[in-house]
């Protein structure tokens, strides 16, 4: 039998015993024929046979040789068969998809959205949680902060003297490096460009284990006074570069980022000598961050214990400065990713749910399709295709569909992850590249294949079962099997349940964000421009020079058209602000036990510019100068906390660690202001910026109209005063708040998008199953109408059927949401995970959508013409 024929009949390949028998037959035929030929020439029979064998040659070898060749042929044949079948399956799948372009398009879009959402979120998870940080042996790198014993995990700063002691006494690290914050200005041909930066000691880069892209990092000794100033550029700063009056000694690699919240563009050496020399500053001024590299066998916990023990020693040795001061520490990954992890994982879970719904949708579509293809399948079975072959064919179709969806999904993810990073703001740490890389592609591929199997297997199995019935009821508008319909209803119910879970999640996040946005911050966000000014250099060395500069700046900006008020303070309250210890005259408290309060130097007009009410007393005025008696304004909260039964005005207080500083008098009480975007207002003490010089200010300009329109004029005024001075981070107050809320907004937006997608898919699912059910019941409905059923009865019958699965899905979904709500806790503000209004709202939305999805099929059922329906039989 020819191999071609065998292929046609799909017979099993020749077995090895069969091949051996064939070869023996073939050779026996030869020997018989040859012997007969010899006998015809007169050789007697036994001799003829012997002669035939003798002259043949090496028989054993030939048999082995031929069998080996035959085995190879069989294997190759089988392989070509498989490849041919696969190609056949793929071509067939492609054709059958093209024959149903509507189905293919809907399925593709569904899958592309599901896979795209997953891939985009996963690309972020990959970049933040999975990919190596840009440090050598990144799991050995830790980040250190100063902390108070009351909040031992807080992320504060460390004092220089403490840091030196940590460095010399520790036994857990191969190295510790310190850094402080401090940027610079690039003065080029155009406007001065502010550069964010860090000052780092010579150890930092070896601790992080980073090699520069160009040049070198800082050498030992380069971080001491009197050496030519040197600069190391971050990759991005280098790309924008210029020359500078410091020597640029190197450029860091593009993937590198420093494990701090804000991105640094330049790095300059950190010299601690002046601070260490000053007794009052060495231990009492906390401004350093630190990084460390653990010794190979030391765990983070052990190293933390080591440092905390040293902090305890320091508390005993320097009670006046170190009481209540300790140190906190996290691995570099934790430090970088921080609070983003729960949000990311929730979003990854949400996108997985969306994908599950998408798969259920496609599975549902395939189920109905399988019904309409029953005849085709039955014909193929009749022609000899086995069940396995049919399942394989249908699975190939699903996989082709899935792969097309996957390709479209990855394309969506490339665009999506870029958009995600762009809109992420502060939520995503600056970890270099977030995008679709090889890991993401691999995972996307596997997800795609699993999807294909998932949504393909059920319809394939269900379609191939009972296929023999197919021919019998061919052409009879068959009802397609009760079981299959039940399967579709179950799929739709599941989809609805998953959609409900996502809707509840989105609802909770939306309500959290609304709560956060409606918090009264204690000042107005409308029409206010803000920017920062940092003075440096010889020109502003004296307090008078600084006062004179700001006085002129406020005059000039205040005179611009549209400006209502302008003022400045140490830092925007939304950025946390500074704190200081507070001592009250007549209430001796041991040093180290002094309460901490928020602390801000402000200009005279700041309250007007911020629209913070002055509740009582007076504002600062020109009479409050460096030499005049110290005056402060306290917030209402501070007044209530520290002078609960007395008038705060007139009381005398001292801020800061130096017991020899003179007392200041409270002259006013201002409204409470929230630092950050949430949380309680912090008790705050304001001092005049003319009595406490910071060498810079966050300026607030209150205007009428669009605050950003004022920016060119503001730049002009600043340039007129000092052409080398950059206007740092100009934006509206509302933008500052929005940035602060970005780690709430982005998860909310994504979750809302996912929920909407889920709801749409579920609605399509409901519509699909109802439309199919009405089509399948046309005859039954026709009979009912013929027997006198009213249109309204038919209508409500269909709607009731549709709402039945919606109610079931809703119940399961709400229960699921209540059970899963806990994972959202960290992302919620002012809302509990089982918030009743959210649940009620979701239930209403879902039922409304399900009802809408039933309407068209129900309307179609009402219009069934009984004559037509019965005749079509």
């Amino acid at each position, binding site marked *: *039998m*020819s*191999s071609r024929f065998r292929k046609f009949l799909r017979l099993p390949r020749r077995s090895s015993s069969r091949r051996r028998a*064939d070869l023996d*037959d*073939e*050779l026996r*035929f*030869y020997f*018989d*024929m*040859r012997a007969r*030929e010899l006998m015809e020439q007169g050789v007697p029979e036994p001799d003829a046979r012997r002669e035939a064998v003798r*002259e*043949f*040659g*090496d*028989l054993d*070898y*030939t048999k082995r*040789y*031929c069998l080996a*060749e*035959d085995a*190879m*042929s069989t294997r*190759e044949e089988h392989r070509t068969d498989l490849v041919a079948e696969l190609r056949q399956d793929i071509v067939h799948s492609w054709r059958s998809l093209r024959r149903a372009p509507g189905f293919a398009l809907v399925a593709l879009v569904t899958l592309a959205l599901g896979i795209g959402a997953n891939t985009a979120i996963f690309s972020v998870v990959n970049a933040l949680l999975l990919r190596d940080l840009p440090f050598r042996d990144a799991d050995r790198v830790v980040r250190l902060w100063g902390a108070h014993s009351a909040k031992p995990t807080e992320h504060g700063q460390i004092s220089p003297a403490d840091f030196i002691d940590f460095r010399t006494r520790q036994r857990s690290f191969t190295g510790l490096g310190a850094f402080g914050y401090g940027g610079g200005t690039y003065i080029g041909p155009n406007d001065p460009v502010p550069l964010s930066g860090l000052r780092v000691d010579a150890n930092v880069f070896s601790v992080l284990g980073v090699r520069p892209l160009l040049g070198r990092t800082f050498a030992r000794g380069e971080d001491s006074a009197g050496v030519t100033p040197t600069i190391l550029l971050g990759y991005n700063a280098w790309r924008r570069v210029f020359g500078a009056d410091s020597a640029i000694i190197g450029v860091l690699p593009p993937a590198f980022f420093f494990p701090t919240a804000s991105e640094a563009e330049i790095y300059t050496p950190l010299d601690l000598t002046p601070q260490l020399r000053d007794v009052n500053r060495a231990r009492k001024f906390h401004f350093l961050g630190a990084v460390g590299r653990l010794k190979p066998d030391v765990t983070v916990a052990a190293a933390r214990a080591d440092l905390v023990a040293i902090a305890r020693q320091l508390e005993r040795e320097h009670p006046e400065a170190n009481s209540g001061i300790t140190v906190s520490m996290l691995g570099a990954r934790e430090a970088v990713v921080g609070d983003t992890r729960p949000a990311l994982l929730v979003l990854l879970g949400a996108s997985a749910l969306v994908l599950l719904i998408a798969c259920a949708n496609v599975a549902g579509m395939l189920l109905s399709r399988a019904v309409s293809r029953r005849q085709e399948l039955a014909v193929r079975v009749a022609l000899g295709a086995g069940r396995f072959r049919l399942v394989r064919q249908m699975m190939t179709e699903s996989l082709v569909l899935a792969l097309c969806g996957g390709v479209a999904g990855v394309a969506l993810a490339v665009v999506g992850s870029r958009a995600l990073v762009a809109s992420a703001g502060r939520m995503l740490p600056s970890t270099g590249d977030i995008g679709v890389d090889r890991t993401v592609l691999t995972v996307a591929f596997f997800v795609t294949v699993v999807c294909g199997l998932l949504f393909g297997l059920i319809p394939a199995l269900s379609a191939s079962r009972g296929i023999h019935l197919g021919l019998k009821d061919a052409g009879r508008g068959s009802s397609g099997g009760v079981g299959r319909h039940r399967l579709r209803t179950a799929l739709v119910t599941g989809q609805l349940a998953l959609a409900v879970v996502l809707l509840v999640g989105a609802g909770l996040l939306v309500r959290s964000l609304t709560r956060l946005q409606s918090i009264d911050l204690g000042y107005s966000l409308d029409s206010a421009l803000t920017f920062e000014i940092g003075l440096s250099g010889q020109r502003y060395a004296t307090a008078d020079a600084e006062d004179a500069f700001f006085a002129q700046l406020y005059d000039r900006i205040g005179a611009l058209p549209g400006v209502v008020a302008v003022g400045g303070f140490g830092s925007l309250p939304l950025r946390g602000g500074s704190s200081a210890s507070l001592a009250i005259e007549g209430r001796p408290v041991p040093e180290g036990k002094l309460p901490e309060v928020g602390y801000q130097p402000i200009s005279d007009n700041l309250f007007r510019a911020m629209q913070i009410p002055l509740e009582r007393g007076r504002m600062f005025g020109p009479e409050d100068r460096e030499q005049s008696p110290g005056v402060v304004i306290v917030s209402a909260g501070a007044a209530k906390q520290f002078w609960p039964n007395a008038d705060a005005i007139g009381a005398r207080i001292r801020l800061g660690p130096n017991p020899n500083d003179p007392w200041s008098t409270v002259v006013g009480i201002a409204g409470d202001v929230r630092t950050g975007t949430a949380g309680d207002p912090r008790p705050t003490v304001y001092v005049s910026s003319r009595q406490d010089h910071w060498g810079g200010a966050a300026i607030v300009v209150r205007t009428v109209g669009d605050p950003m329109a004022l920016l060119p004029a503001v730049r002009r005024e600043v340039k007129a005063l000092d052409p080398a001075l950059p206007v740092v981070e100009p934006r509206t107050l509302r933008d500052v708040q929005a940035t602060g809320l970005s780690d709430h907004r982005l998860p909310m937006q994504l979750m809302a998008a996912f929920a909407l997608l889920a709801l749409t898919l579920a609605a399509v699912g409901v519509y699909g199953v109802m439309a199919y059910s009405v089509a399948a019941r046309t005859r039954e409905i026709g009979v009912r109408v013929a027997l006198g059923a009213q249109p309204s009865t038919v209508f409500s019958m269909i709607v009731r059927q549709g709402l039945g699965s919606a109610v079931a899905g809703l119940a399961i979904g709400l229960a699921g949401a209540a059970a899963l709500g806990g994972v959202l806790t960290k992302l919620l503000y002012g809302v509990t995970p089982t918030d009743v209004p959210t649940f009620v709202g979701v239930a209403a939305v879902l039922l409304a959508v399900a009802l809408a999805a039933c309407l068209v099929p129900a309307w179609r059922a009402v219009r069934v013409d009984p004559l037509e329906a019965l005749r079509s039989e």
Partner: protein
Amino acid sequence: MTKPPMDLLQGTVDVLILRTLAWEPMHGYGVSRFIRERTEGVLTIESAALYQALHRLERKKWIRAEWGVSENNRRAKYYALTTEGRKQLRAEAATWRTYADAVFKVLEPI
């Protein structure tokens, strides 16, 4: 006795078989007899080499095998040239002709 035939020899056997099967499908015995008669006994292919070649050529898909019924009503395995085999025969025949021409050009003056 015979180990696998030499490459040149193998190639020669192959091309002779292909040429023989180009006439009509034959069984192995038929091929052997045809070559013997056609070359008037100058060329005899050892039957061992012939059968090895047939199975090898089948694996290469230059010929294909089918079981049929012989002249004396016996089950016999018939080999037929495939399209690919015909292509191969044409190529090898051309090579042989060039080779033979070259050899004759050297030998001719005698």
